[in-house]
């Protein structure tokens, strides 16, 4: 334990400071202001900071002088059901947010991989959307504004609480998927949706080629879906691939779309899942990636998915894989070596497909970086933007690989 740091933190944050299991001083501020106070001290003394939510996604293993956890910043600060807007602290869990919104018949269409206890701040920082991105878009589309504490302890607000807003530069965008390199997300204004009257979920199982063909036909028919996700056998603990489709809306509309799915899919048989079974299936898909130490996402268009799945198979194995066959995007979980991931990145870069490390042990993240090698011109720009939000580089976030991989 670093006693001087522990004692110094005690002096400024008192009961919010404890000693973590790893021997590091651990601070749990309850507000943006308290967080800013700690960050200012860390910046002035050049302490290296590891930011954690509930440690339910990223392994809490980055080397640091102290840990800041948002676990006490866990409140849903406001809900405006009529405006379909809510404000939550960064440490609020998706489970708690869902429960709090249910009586208002509202929800946030975020279904990230991992545990339902993941914090909203973690979901933003890693930009981890789930199958619902098919209808509702990536994480950034659900965020109206953020309050961020910078690496030197400033409190910066961007965006607002209205659903349309172009006042000022959109600083929220670098926070989302920025892996905490651009500050600690203290508060988030999210856009809510009214809970749909009807929902129907279908699943088909079979061979990869047949399901890809069925998905292509469904997508070409422009069926109105909330998700259309392909899942590998390992992800659903099955011997076959699965294609899950879901539609939301009015009962008449949902029934009509189900009819269209089955027509477009031809010989592929889709079986309906009741509400609870659908929840279980999708939760298993989301939580399945936790079985593997490394999770990556590939920014592939749906039209490029078949070839990309093959490339994954050839390079690092099929692993626990899911792919959006309408909106695009592919997630893979497994245990690759850094060399294998580099090889995959090189092959996919030729096809304009970025590969982002969403979750991995520190040593792996540090070696290959969340984003791999930056394109020409992006590195200096990223470094300058990062310097605005973390001038002392006190936040541990390896965006680029250590060896430029």
């Amino acid at each position, binding site marked *: 334990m670093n006693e001087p740091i522990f004692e110094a933190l005690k002096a400024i944050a008192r009961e919010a400071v404890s000693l973590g299991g790893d021997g590091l001083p651990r601070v749990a501020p309850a507000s943006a202001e308290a967080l800013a106070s700690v960050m200012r001290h860390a910046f002035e003394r050049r302490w290296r900071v590891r930011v954690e939510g509930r440690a339910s996604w990223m392994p809490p293993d980055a080397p640091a002088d102290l840990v800041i956890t948002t676990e006490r910043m866990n409140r849903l600060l406001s809900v405006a059901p009529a405006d379909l807007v809510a404000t939550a602290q960064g440490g609020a869990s998706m489970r708690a947010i869902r429960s709090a919104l249910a009586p208002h018949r509202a929800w946030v269409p975020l279904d990230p991989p991992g545990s339902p206890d993941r914090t909203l701040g973690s979901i933003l920082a890693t930009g981890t959307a789930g199958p619902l991105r098919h209808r509702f878009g990536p994480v950034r589309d659900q965020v109206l504004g953020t309050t961020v504490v910078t690496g030197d302890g400033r409190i910066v607000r961007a965006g607002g609480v209205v659903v349309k807003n172009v006042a000022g530069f959109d600083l929220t965008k670098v926070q989302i998927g920025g892996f905490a390199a651009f500050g600690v997300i203290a508060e988030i204004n999210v856009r809510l949706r*009214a809970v749909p*009257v009807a929902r129907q979920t279908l699943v088909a199982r079979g061979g990869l080629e047949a399901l890809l063909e069925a998905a292509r036909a469904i997508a070409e028919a422009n069926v109105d879906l909330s998700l259309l996700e392909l899942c590998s056998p390992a992800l659903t603990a099955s011997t076959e691939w699965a294609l899950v489709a879901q539609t939301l809306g009015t009962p008449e509309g949902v029934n009509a779309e189900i009819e269209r799915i089955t027509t477009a899919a031809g010989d592929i048989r889709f079986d309906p899942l009741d509400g609870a079974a659908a929840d279980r299936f999708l939760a298993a898909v989301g939580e399945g990636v936790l079985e593997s130490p490394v999770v990556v*996402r590939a920014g592939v268009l749906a039209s490029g998915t078949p070839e990309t799945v093959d490339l994954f198979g050839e390079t690092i194995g099929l692993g626990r894989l899911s792919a959006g066959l309408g909106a695009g995007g592919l997630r893979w979980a497994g245990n690759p070596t850094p060399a294998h991931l580099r090889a995959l990145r090189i092959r996919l870069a030729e096809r304009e497909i970025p590969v982002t490390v969403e979750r991995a042990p520190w040593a792996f993240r540090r070696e290959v970086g969340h984003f791999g090698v930056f394109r020409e011109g992006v590195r200096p720009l990223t470094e300058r933007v990062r310097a605005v939000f973390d001038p002392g580089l006190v936040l541990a976030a390896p965006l680029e690989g250590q060896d430029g991989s």
Partner: protein
Amino acid sequence: MAPAIAEPATDPELLRALGRIVGPRWVRARRSERRAYEADGLPTHASVPMVAVLPGTTREVIALVRLLAERGVPWVARGAGTGLSGGALAASDAVLIPLTRLNRILEIDPRRRRARIEPGVVNARLSEAALPHGLLYAPDPSSQSACTLGGNVAENAGGPHCLKYGTTTNHVTALEIVLADGTVTRLGSPLGEPWGPDLVGLFVGSEGMFGIALEITVRLEPIPAAIRTLLADFTSVREATEAVGAIVAAGIVPAALEMLDQACVRAVEASIYAAGYPTDAAAVLLVELDGTGPSVAAEATMVEAMLRKRGARSVRSAETAAERARLWQGRKKAFGAMGRIAPDLVVQDAVVPRSALPAVLDTIGEIGRRYRLTICNVFHAGDGNLHPNICYDRRDQDLAGRVEEASRAIMEACVAAGGSITGEHGVGADKIDYMPMIFDETSLATMCAVRRAFDPSERANPNKVVPVHSCREWRAATGRRR
């Protein structure tokens, strides 16, 4: 209007150097030529640039930017000049770079539902080009028949259909940009997944202060199989706004949900854009639903019932494409129709939470009476994006002063209701003084610093968006830190 101050003489050598890049005919240095660029769509601001230079290729744009970097000359990129915030005005020491000649659609890829275009492509032209493939480009600002996609990127433009489909930022997946120092960089990917932090998201809406988009990749959407457009009229504005809240709260997301108040309806109906709106209504709502046939039919039934329950006197459904087009013409040309009322028109832009619409509209009515102004409201009700239109004559200085004071009062009312000073027009020069209403000094200074990450010399579209003093304070703070 244009300031009557003596202008510095333009360096003839600079003009020759600019001419060597684009050809002398594309250098507009005569005052009469430059005055064509003194304003955008906002009549309250004007500024004549030092010179206007119109490049015809991206290579010429890059060469221009590099030349101006070498000489330390500020510049302003401009699209079609339809902006409504004075955002593309250049001062007399700055070079204006209109990008309207870069108007090529480079690629439409129907399989991947993507298009690559140059920044000077007109918004509506892209949808026309995508139409044979069964696709469209969703953001549809009212000026879409003239405004350019480069301008849309700079302003993060919206439009009626962004209620369901999102604004420009939700449709741009990749950009090739040139920074003010002449560096050319590619950001984003065809899917939209970034190769690093989301610099595309940061660039869109940066109002021309981060650089110039040389090439834009956008997402195209399938043309909906079914569209239903409803027109509902109400005898009270409050009932109309409450109907808006009821529709959204029911989980229905219309493609568009627009409102026009009586003053606006009457202006439209008295113009060549008459759409058949009832002129005795206090407000009309235009509700458009799109999707697949059965879904749209079911939602239309629900929406019609909600409209009637909330007090709609009548609900009419467009039966033909021509009728739908006519209903939309009235909405999209409403600003033009108001030209009949007075020679000048300020189209204001602010956003409030939907639940605040009734109270804020009441307040705007009071502000109109207080300042003795005619204010018409035509706006995107579904997302709370107000467009109070103030008709006036700019030659009347007293009147112009009252317009300015009323605009500020409207902004204050919207901010007090929890809203924002702009939903889609941008801050530009017009609203720069309002920025402290919604952002504290630290946040403004951070915006300045991010701008300097893209353009350390602050030569790209200077003196817009963030008040200068906020930038100075940032520089002082970082200087102390070092």
